[in-house]
């Protein structure tokens, strides 16, 4: 493909469509200038002040907000939680998610129904899914405790959302539940998988699950990388998963950066400067993961 493309490009090396390109790119540049570039400058400026959401009468405080942020255990806890929740969803996606995608690609009956069941949770509003999860684990009427009591395991019933450990488990389960996107990535790349090495393995008499584990799994390494990075980024984009299930509590034990920022912005106090400083740090983390993703996909293209 590369040789195909480079030939005509060389031919018109002298030609440049720069002027036309600027016209075609101008809507994009406008959006980027306002929503990303200006936003970053605005965050930088605001992060040096003490101000409310009205953004009026800002008081200059220098680097104080960043100093406070470094000392804030809840913020570092939120970043750590983002990484932990991402790890849980990654672990589930590269095992169960991978298996679901392969199993459905082998051609089963009612496949469309299966796809709906596995992909739907990730495509309906997260606020709704998280609310349902919170309801399921409610102490008195939640279906989880009800079920435990009805099968004689009432001792295991507990106030899931009010204890740090169980609350953490609930949110982690929710993140693991929302693996529709990885299943889609695997499904798409399986459809483009070269089948010759599978045929060779079949001739060797390898069994179904051995082929899945020893042949297909390693062949999907680029997809695994895509899955890991997209879930990592998705975790830092997450808000509703926590906000609608545990609200970040108890304490800040299930807080993620999304719910942390959202909570401070809606707190009504003069916390906007402080939150802008936190937002800048979150933005830097997201950009670093983005750059990692760009390098990962670039090597992928090169290796092909």
């Amino acid at each position: 493909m590369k040789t195909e493309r480079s030939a005509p490009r060389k031919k018109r090396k002298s030609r440049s469509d720069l002027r036309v390109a600027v016209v075609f790119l101008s809507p994009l540049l406008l959006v980027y200038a306002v929503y990303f570039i200006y936003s970053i400058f605005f965050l930088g400026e605001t992060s040096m002040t003490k101000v409310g959401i009205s953004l009026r009468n800002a008081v200059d405080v220098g680097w104080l907000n960043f100093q406070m942020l470094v000392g804030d255990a809840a913020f570092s806890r939120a970043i750590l939680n983002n990484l932990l929740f991402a790890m849980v969803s990654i672990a589930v996606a590269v095992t169960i998610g991978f298996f679901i995608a392969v199993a459905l690609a082998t051609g089963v009956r009612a496949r469309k129904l299966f796809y709906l069941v596995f992909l739907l949770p990730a495509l309906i509003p997260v606020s709704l899914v998280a609310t349902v999860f919170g309801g399921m684990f409610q102490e008195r009427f939640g279906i989880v405790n009800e079920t435990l009591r009805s099968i004689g395991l009432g001792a295991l019933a507990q106030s899931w959302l009010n204890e740090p450990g169980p609350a953490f488990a609930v949110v982690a389960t929710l993140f693991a539940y929302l693996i529709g996107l990885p299943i889609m990535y695997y499904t798409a790349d399986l459809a483009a998988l070269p089948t010759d090495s599978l045929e060779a393995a079949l001739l060797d008499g390898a069994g179904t699950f051995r082929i899945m584990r020893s042949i297909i799994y390693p062949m999907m390494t680029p997809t695994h990388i895509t899955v890991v990075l997209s879930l990592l980024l998705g975790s830092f984009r997450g808000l509703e998963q926590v906000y609608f299930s545990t609200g970040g509590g108890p304490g800040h034990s299930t807080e993620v950066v999304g719910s942390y920022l959202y909570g401070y912005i809606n707190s009504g106090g003069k916390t906007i400067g402080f939150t802008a400083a936190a937002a800048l740090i979150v933005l830097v983390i997201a950009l670093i993961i983005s750059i990692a993703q760009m390098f990962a996909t670039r090597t992928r293209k090169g290796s092909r």
Partner: protein
Amino acid sequence: MTATAKQQKRPNILTANPMSMVVTRGADRLVIYGLLIVMGLIFAFPLYALIRRSFEVGGINNYITLFTDPIGNVPILSTYVNSLFIGVGHAALVVSVSTTAGYALSKLQFRGRELTFSGVLLFLAVPGTAILIPVYHITQQLHLFNNYLGVALPEAALTIPFGVLLMRNYGRNIPDSLMEAAQLDGASHFRIFWNIFLPLARPALANLTVLCFIWSLQDFLWPSMLFTNPDLATAAQAVKLYSNVIGQSPEQYGRYNASLVLLAVPAVLFVIFGLRFIVNGLTSGSTKE
């Protein structure tokens, strides 16, 4: 793999059986079915819990009263309409910006094209919460609070990096020869874009449009920050609005769950009828070329 072969292959992602030969024994097939059914039941369990709860106390009346006596005077149907209007703005903004930029980044020759593309991708994963404060300020300056466009704009800003990636990847798969022929005939880039590129890019546009609607339906962040008027509440936002009004008493809990079921309906319909577009769209940004 040639570009055309890939394009023919893509629409069949959900129906192709590339792995059918992997299952060598009938017993293995049974095991696969068994595992899929068990996992399917686990995945469907929250939905079952929700629907069961939605009939508690009031039975079907839980649903009927949502129409006759809407919670907080915000009818479910108006949340559908609000999400739809935002979706239209979101999709229109994303499609117009992404197609023009996608054309420039795949079909025009200029220095710094790849660098520009990398710069676009850098913002592919900006968390909405991280730019919430500046967007709040921008919305204030533009007087767009309680305005559909006010929510559609930041939604579009966060979707556009993905849209450009999608359109640029798709554009690269359109053979240059078509455009070169038009250029020899003296057609301008604007004509080529309008008469050749856009019609050929229709499948990608369909995917992108469906995704914009799904994401508008899912979005809680922007409406919750930029709408203060409950009449404008979207489906995702109403989840919170209703919960605030109705409280958590067991008598009302069934009714609240009934409202959750109904709030999910538009997204579920989109997924049932548009799953192919969604999967093709979401994965075309990631798959190798």
